[in-house]
C-alpha cells in the first residue's frame, strides 16, 4: 500500500510572487482518511494537485521539496504513470465528463482503456466501481444527462475503476445539493472502509470531522497543524484560520463540556450526545 511522504514542499504558480505552498512536510499512512481544511486560497487544492503530480507536471512554476508515494518521486514520474496509484476527483462534476463516451458504462472505461487494461478485466473493474458507487442503474444513460450527484459519483467511479491506492477529493460536494452531497459522502465512506487512502478537501466541518482520522489545517500555504479532528477543532485559534468548528463542538465549547477521557471537545453528534447526557446524569 502507498505511504505518502511530503518533505519541505514549496510551490509558486507561474506569474505570481507568493508561495502557494510554503514548506509543507508530513506523512500519510496507508489507509488513512485525511481531511484538509483552511480558508479559501490557503493552498488546499494546490496541495491535492501536488500529491496527484499535476503540480509540477501540468502546471509549471517554481517547485521545491519532494513528495514520495512509496518510492516514486512525484516530480520525476509523469501524471500518466502516477495516475495508476493516485486518483483525483475535482470540484465540478460536469467538467470531469470526458465528452467522448455515450454511456456511463463507457465513460468509466476511459481511464482503463488508456491504461491498456485487457477487456475482460476492464469489464470487471467497471462493474465493481459502479456497484460500489451505486450507479449500476444508470449504466446506459448519457453521461451529461445525469444529475450533479450522480455525475460526481460517476467521476469517482471512473477513478475507482482504475484501482488507485490513494484517492484525492478536492471539494467533491461543493456544487451539489444536500442529497447529492450525502450520496457522495456515503460512497467515500465505503471506499475508506476498503482500505483506500483518502485525502479530502471539504468545507462541511461536521462531515469531515466525523470521517477523518487526521485533519490538515492550512493557512496561507503553510501547514499549521496536522492532528486528530478532536485536537484540531479544540484549538482556540480556529477563527484566525477562517475555520468554524462543527456545530456540536461549538455548542459544547460554549457550555464548557469536554470529553473527560481525552480532554478535548466532542466533534460529532454522538460524542456530544454522550457527553451531554453523561453530564446531566452527573448533575442528577
Amino acid at each position: 500500500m502507498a505511504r505518502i511522504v511530503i518533505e519541505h514542499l514549496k510551490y509558486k504558480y507561474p506569474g505570481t510572487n507568493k508561495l502557494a505552498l510554503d514548506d509543507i512536510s508530513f506523512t500519510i499512512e496507508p489507509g488513512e482518511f485525511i481531511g484538509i481544511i483552511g480558508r479559501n486560497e490557503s493552498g488546499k487544492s494546490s496541495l491535492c494537485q501536488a500529491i496527484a503530480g499535476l503540480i509540477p507536471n501540468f502546471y509549471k512554476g517554481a517547485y521545491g521539496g519532494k513528495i514520495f508515494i512509496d518510492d516514486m518521486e512525484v516530480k520525476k514520474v509523469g501524471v500518466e504513470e502516477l495516475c495508476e496509484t493516485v486518483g483525483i476527483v475535482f470540484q465540478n462534476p460536469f467538467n470531469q465528463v470526458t465528452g467522448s463516451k455515450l454511456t456511463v458504462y463507457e465513460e468509466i472505461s476511459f481511464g482503463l482503456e488508456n491504461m491498456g487494461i485487457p477487456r475482460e478485466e476492464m469489464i470487471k473493474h467497471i462493474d465493481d466501481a459502479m456497484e460500489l458507487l451505486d450507479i449500476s442503474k444508470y449504466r446506459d444513460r448519457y453521461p451529461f444527462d445525469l444529475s450533479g450527484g450522480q455525475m460526481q459519483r460517476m467521476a469517482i467511479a471512473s477513478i475507482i475503476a482504475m484501482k488507485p491506492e490513494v484517492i484525492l477529493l478536492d471539494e467533491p460536494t461543493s456544487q451539489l445539493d444536500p442529497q447529492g452531497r450525502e450520496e457522495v459522502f456515503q460512497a467515500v465512506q465505503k471506499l475508506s472502509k476498503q482500505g483506500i487512502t483518502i485525502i479530502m478537501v471539504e468545507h462541511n466541518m461536521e462531515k469531515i470531522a466525523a470521517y477523518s482520522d487526521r485533519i490538515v489545517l492550512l493557512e496561507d500555504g503553510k501547514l499549521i497543524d496536522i492532528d486528530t479532528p478532536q485536537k484540531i477543532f479544540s484549538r482556540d485559534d480556529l477563527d484566525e484560520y477562517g475555520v468554524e468548528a462543527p456545530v456540536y463542538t461549538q455548542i459544547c465549547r460554549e457550555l464548557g463540556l469536554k470529553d473527560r477521557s481525552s480532554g478535548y471537545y466532542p466533534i460529532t453528534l454522538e460524542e456530544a450526545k454522550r457527553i451531554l447526557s453523561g453530564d446531566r446524569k452527573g448533575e442528577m
Partner: protein
Amino acid sequence: MKSISLYVDKGSWLNKMAPESKIIYIITAITVPALLGIRWAGMGFIVLSIILLLSGKVLKKTLPLLGVSGFVLVTVLIIQGLFWAGNITPLFRIGPAVFYKEGLNFALGILVNVINILLSFCVLILTTKPSDMIENFVRKGFSPRFGYVFISVFQIIPQMTETMNTITDAQRSRGMETEGKLWVRIKAFIPLISPVIMSSLINTKERALALEVRGFNSKNKKTFLNEQVKTSADIYIQIALLLGIAAALIWRITVWLG
C-alpha cells in the same frame, strides 16, 4: 440527449458493418463513375445508395439533406439551362425564358455527381456511430488524441450551445434585448459570446486536468471496451469494392492506350 451527429441506431445490417467498408464504398462510388466517364455509372451508384439506405431504414433521414442541396441543384439546373456557353438547341420555353438542351444536359451531369456523392456519404454518416468509426481508426494506428478531439466535438458543441442558451436567458432576464432587428442582435452578441468563451476556456482547462489523471497521455498500448464493429462479410465487400475501382482504372487506361 442532444447530438449533432446524424447517426440513428436502427439495428440494421448497415449499422453492424465496419465503418471502413462504408468509407471504401464512398471512394468507389465517387471514383468509378469519374474513371468510367459515363453518366449511367453515377446513376447506377445513386440507385445502389438508395437501395442501401432503404435496407438500412434511413432513407427518410436523407430527405432533409436532399432538400437543402436540392434548392442549390435546382438553381444550377435553371442557370445552366438558360445561360450555358454551349447552348444551341432550344428544348422548351417558360414565358420569355428559353431552356437549352446542352445546358440542361450539362447541369444533369452535375446533378448526378452531387447526388451520388451526397447519398454515398449518407450511407456512412446515417448508419455509423461517430465514436465507433474513430475507434476503428485508432485501432488501425490513428492517434488517440486526435481521435478524442473528433469524438468529443460531437458532445462538447451541444454542451456549449446549452451554455449559450443559459447565458442568453440570464442576460435577457437582466433586460437585454436579444431578439428583433439585426442591429439589436449584433449589439447583443458580444455580451453573450464573451461569457461563453471565458467559461469554455475554464472548462477546457479543468477537463484537460481530468483527462490527464485518467491516463490520457499513458504510454501503454490502448485497449478498448467495445468490441470492434465488423462482420464476417466486411472483408469480402471491401475486396469487391477495391476490385471494382481497379477494374475501372484498368478500363480507363486501356481506353487511353487504345
